[in-house]
C-alpha cells in the first residue's frame, strides 16, 4: 500500500520570544535566520527526511509554499538540485494556499499509487509575515516538513483521503503584499475553518468507514491554539488527549508546512497500529486517514524531526534584529555597495551548478585527494582530468580557522571534511565567541546573497545541531 516511507522536518535555530512583540504574550515563535527562507528550510527538511536514503533513488519532488522567493521560476528544481536528485524526475511547485502542502502530499500519493513514480518527495515550507504589530505577526512561525512517499515499506499507510474546495476571502496576499491579510476573525473562523474542516472530515469518515473513536490523534492546522481546541470539541474529539499539540508556544503557525510538521510531531509519539487523522486548511481542506506501521520505529532514531529541532535553539536578542532579518528595515548602506561589488551571474552559476547545489568536490582517482572546489589538475599529484565527483554536503567537518568579517560581520573560516577535503565558507547560526578550532560542524544550505533579482544559494557551515 502506498504510504509515507520517511519523514523529516526543519525548524530554524532562531526563536523570538513573543514578549519582544507585546508584554504578556506567551511562548516563542520560530524565526528563519537572515540567510534562510522557504527554499533553504525545504532543503534542510528534505535532508532530514533522506537520512539513509540514497538521493538518486528519488523519482520526483513537489515543493509547497506560499512564500516561494520566486514568483516565476521553479523552486522544486533548486531543492532537488541541492538534495542531489537525478535530472529525470518530476518536479512541481504547489502554491498560493495554506493547504498546498497537503495537496502536494495527495498528488504524490496518487502518483505513487498510479505507478508513475516509485518514490516521491513532498516538502512544504513557509516563512510568512504578519503586519508589524499585528496579532498575526506574533502567531506566525517558520519551518518545513518533508515526506517521502513510496509503494513499499511504508511507516505510515495512507488509508483514505478526502478534500473540499471552498472559495472564501479569509486569508490572502496580493502580488504587491508583503504581509498576510486576514478578514475579521469571527467571520473567517465560523464560515471558514470551523465549517470547512468538519465538512472534509465528514467526507473522509464516509470514505474510510472509520469513526472518530478509531483515531488516537487528530492532527490539524490551527489558526491559533484556541480555535484548534474549539474545532476538536465541535467534532467530538477530546482536545486534551486526542488533539495534537499545535506547538504554538514553541514555534507558532508555520503556514503551509504547519499541519505536516504537526503530523511529524504526532508520529514521533506514535506507535504501530495508531490511527491518525490529518487535516489542513486553506480555501478548503485536505484530510487523510493514516495508520502507523512497525517500520516507523526504524525511522524515528535517525530523524531530527520536530523534537530534535525544537531542542536546539537560540533566542533573537531584539525586535530590531527580526525586522532587519526579514528585510523590513531600510537596507543597503552606501558602504555595502562600495565594498562588496561582485554580483551573481547566471552563466557561472550554471557552469558551477554541481559544486554549488549538491556541493560536489572532486576526488583524484590517482592519489585519492579530495578537493573543493572541484579541480581539473590535482593539487597533490598534478594528474589532469582524472577525478570523480564526491558529495560533501552530507559530510561532517571540523573548524580549522575562523574570523569575523569586519564590515559585514559574517563569520568565515576553513572547514575540513571527514574523509578529506576542505572548504572556505561562511559559518552561520553561531556567535564568534562560541567558535573554536577543531569544533564539529555540518553544512547547511543558505541564501548567501540577493542581488540583481537573483536569490543566490550556497552552503554554509553550522555547529552540528543536536
Amino acid at each position: 500500500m502506498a504510504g509515507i516511507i520517511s519523514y523529516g522536518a526543519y525548524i530554524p535555530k532562531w526563536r523570538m520570544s513573543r514578549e519582544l512583540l507585546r508584554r504578556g504574550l506567551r511562548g516563542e515563535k520560530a524565526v528563519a535566520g537572515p540567510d534562510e527562507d522557504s527554499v533553504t528550510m525545504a532543503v534542510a527538511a528534505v535532508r532530514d527526511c533522506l537520512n539513509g536514503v540514497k538521493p538518486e533513488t528519488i523519482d520526483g519532488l513537489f515543493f509547497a509554499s506560499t512564500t516561494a522567493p520566486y514568483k516565476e521560476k521553479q523552486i522544486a528544481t533548486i531543492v532537488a538540485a541541492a538534495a542531489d536528485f537525478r535530472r529525470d524526475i518530476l518536479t512541481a511547485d504547489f502554491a498560493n494556499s495554506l493547504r498546498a502542502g497537503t495537496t502536494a502530499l495527495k498528488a504524490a500519493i496518487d502518483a505513487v499509487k498510479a505507478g508513475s513514480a516509485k518514490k516521491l518527495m513532498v516538502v512544504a515550507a513557509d516563512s510568512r509575515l504578519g503586519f508589524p504589530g499585528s496579532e498575526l505577526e506574533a502567531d506566525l512561525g517558520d519551518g518545513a516538513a518533508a515526506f517521502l512517499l513510496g509503494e513499499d515499506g511504508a511507516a505510515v499507510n495512507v488509508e483514505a483521503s478526502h478534500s473540499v474546495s471552498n472559495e472564501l476571502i479569509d486569508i490572502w496576499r496580493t502580488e504587491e503584499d508583503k504581509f498576510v491579510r486576514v478578514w475579521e476573525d469571527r467571520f473567517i473562523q465560523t464560515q471558514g475553518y470551523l465549517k470547512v474542516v468538519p465538512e472534509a472530515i465528514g467526507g473522509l469518515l464516509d470514505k474510510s468507514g472509520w469513526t472518530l473513536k478509531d483515531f488516537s490523534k487528530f492532527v490539524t492546522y490551527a489558526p491559533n491554539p484556541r480555535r484548534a481546541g474549539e474545532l476538536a470539541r465541535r467534532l467530538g474529539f477530546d482536545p486534551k488527549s486526542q488533539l495534537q499539540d499545535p506547538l504554538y508556544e514553541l514555534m507558532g503557525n508555520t503556514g503551509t508546512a504547519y499541519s505536516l510538521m504537526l503530523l511529524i510531531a504526532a508520529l514521533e509519539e506514535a506507535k504501530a497500529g495508531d490511527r491518525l487523522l490529518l487535516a489542513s486548511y486553506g480555501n478548503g481542506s485536505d484530510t487523510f486517514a493514516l495508520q502507523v506501521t512497525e517500520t516507523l520505529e526504524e525511522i524515528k532514531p535517525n530523524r531530527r524531526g520536530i523534537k530534535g529541532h525544537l531542542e536546539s535553539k537560540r533566542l533573537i536578542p531584539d525586535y530590531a534584529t527580526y525586522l532587519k532579518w526579514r528585510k523590513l528595515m531600510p537596507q543597503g548602506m552606501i558602504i555595502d555597495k562600495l565594498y562588496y561589488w561582485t554580483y551573481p551571474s547566471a552563466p557561472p552559476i550554471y557552469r558551477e551548478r554541481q559544486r554549488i547545489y549538491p556541493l560536489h568536490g572532486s576526488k583524484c582517482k590517482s592519489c585519492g585527494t579530495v578537493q573543493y572546489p572541484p579541480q581539473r589538475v590535482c593539487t597533490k599529484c598534478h594528474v589532469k582530468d582524472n577525478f570523480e565527483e564526491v558529495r560533501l554536503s552530507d559530510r561532517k567537518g571540523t573548524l580549522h580557522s575562523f574570523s569575523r568579517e569586519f564590515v559585514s560581520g559574517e563569520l568565515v573560516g576553513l572547514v575540513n571534511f571527514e574523509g578529506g577535503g576542505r572548504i572556505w565558507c561562511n559559518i552561520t547560526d553561531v556567535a564568534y565567541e562560541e567558535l573554536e578550532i577543531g569544533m564539529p560542524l555540518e553544512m547547511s544550505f543558505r541564501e548567501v546573497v540577493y542581488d540583481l533579482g537573483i536569490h543566490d544559494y550556497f552552503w554554509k557551515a553550522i555547529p552540528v545541531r543536536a
Partner: protein
Amino acid sequence: MPGVKDKVAIIGMGCTKFDEHWDKDVKDLMIDACWEAFEDSGVDPKDIQAAWWSTMWNGDLGRSLAYPLKLGFIPITRVENRCASGMDALRNAYYAIAAGAYDLVLVCGAEKLKDIGMPSPGGDPSTPYTSRVDPTYFPVACFAQLAQRYFYHWDTPLEKGKEILARIAVKNHHNGSLNPKAQFQREITLEQAMNAPIISYPLGLYDACGVTDGAAAAILCRADLAKNFRDDYILVKGEGMACGHYQAEIEDDWEGYYIEENVQASKLAYQEAGIKDPRKELDLAIVHDCFTITELTIYEDLGFSPRGKGPEDVEAGIFSLEGELPVNTDGGLKCFGHPIGASGIRMTYEVYKQLQGKAGPRQVRIKSGLGLAHTFGGTPIDSGTGAISVLGCRD
C-alpha cells in the same frame, strides 16, 4: 647564468607623500612620483625607452601612464599582481634590461584608495560577475586567521601574542615618526596598540595598515651605463617571486601558520644574490607588514628568525632601527598605508635611500651594502604572490 644580478642599476627614484590626497587624483600622484625620479636621476622623460606600471584599481592599459606623463609611443605594460604589483613591475623591468632589450626604462606604481575608502573590497576586481557563492571578505579576515593559526601552532597565549604584535606596531610607528613621507608620523605606546578596537579578532586597529593614496617610481638602466647618471647608483642583486595556487583553501593538510610563497620567493632571491644568512648579511629589510602578524611570520619565512622564534627576536629588539637587522625602517605599510600598486616601489625607494645613506634621522648603518624589499599579494588563507628584490651598493 641567466638572471638580473649586477646587470641592472637603479639611478633614480621618486615617492609621493603617502596620504589622504583628497585634492589629487591618481594621475597627479603619478606625475609627482615620476618627476621626482626624473630629477633624482637627471633623466629626460623623452629618453625613456619602455615603461611598466602597476595598479590594482586605478588604470587599465599602458596609456594610463603615458597620458599623464605624455610618454610618446613607447611600449608600456600594466602589471597587476595584487599587493605584489609594484615589485612585479620592477621585476619585469629588471629582466627587460638584463635581456638587453632596453637601456633606460621607467617603472611607476600608483593607487588612489581614498575614493572608495578601502584597500581591497571583497571579490576579484577582474571578474565582478561570478557565481558569487563563495565568501566575500576583506584581507583582514584572512590575516586574522594567520594570527589564529600562528598562536595555535606555537601554543602562544593570546595576551602574549597580542603583545608581540603590538611591539611590531610600536616599532614601525616609531620609524614612521622619523619619516616625512609617511601617512602616520606619530609614536604609539604598547598599551595603545594592545587596547585598540578590534578589527578582526585578534587583530586590532594598530595591527592593520592604513588606507592611503600614493605613488612611487624608479628609473632603471643597464648597470654598465649607470655611472653616466650618478656615482651612488644602486644595483639589483637578486629577485625572487613565488605564486601560490590556492593551496591553503583546497589542501586539507595546509596548516596556515606561515606563508609558503614568501619562503619560496626568498629562496630564489637569496640564491641569486648569494645570501646565505640573511639576518647577518642584510643591512635592512622593508617587508610587507599589511598586518603586524604578516611581519611576524615574514621574519621566519624569510629566514631572519628561526621558526617559532620570531617573538623572542621581537622582544630582543632585533628588528628595531638600532637592532641587528632593522626591518621597516621607513615605518612600513603600518605608517605608509597601502596604496596597492605603489607599495612595492615605495619599499624599494626606502632601501635605495638607505643604501645611499640618504635616509636622514632613520638612517641605519650600512655594513654589507645589501638591503631587501618584500611584498606579499593575496592572503594566507587562500594563496598569493611573494615577491622580493635584493638591492646592493655598487662596488
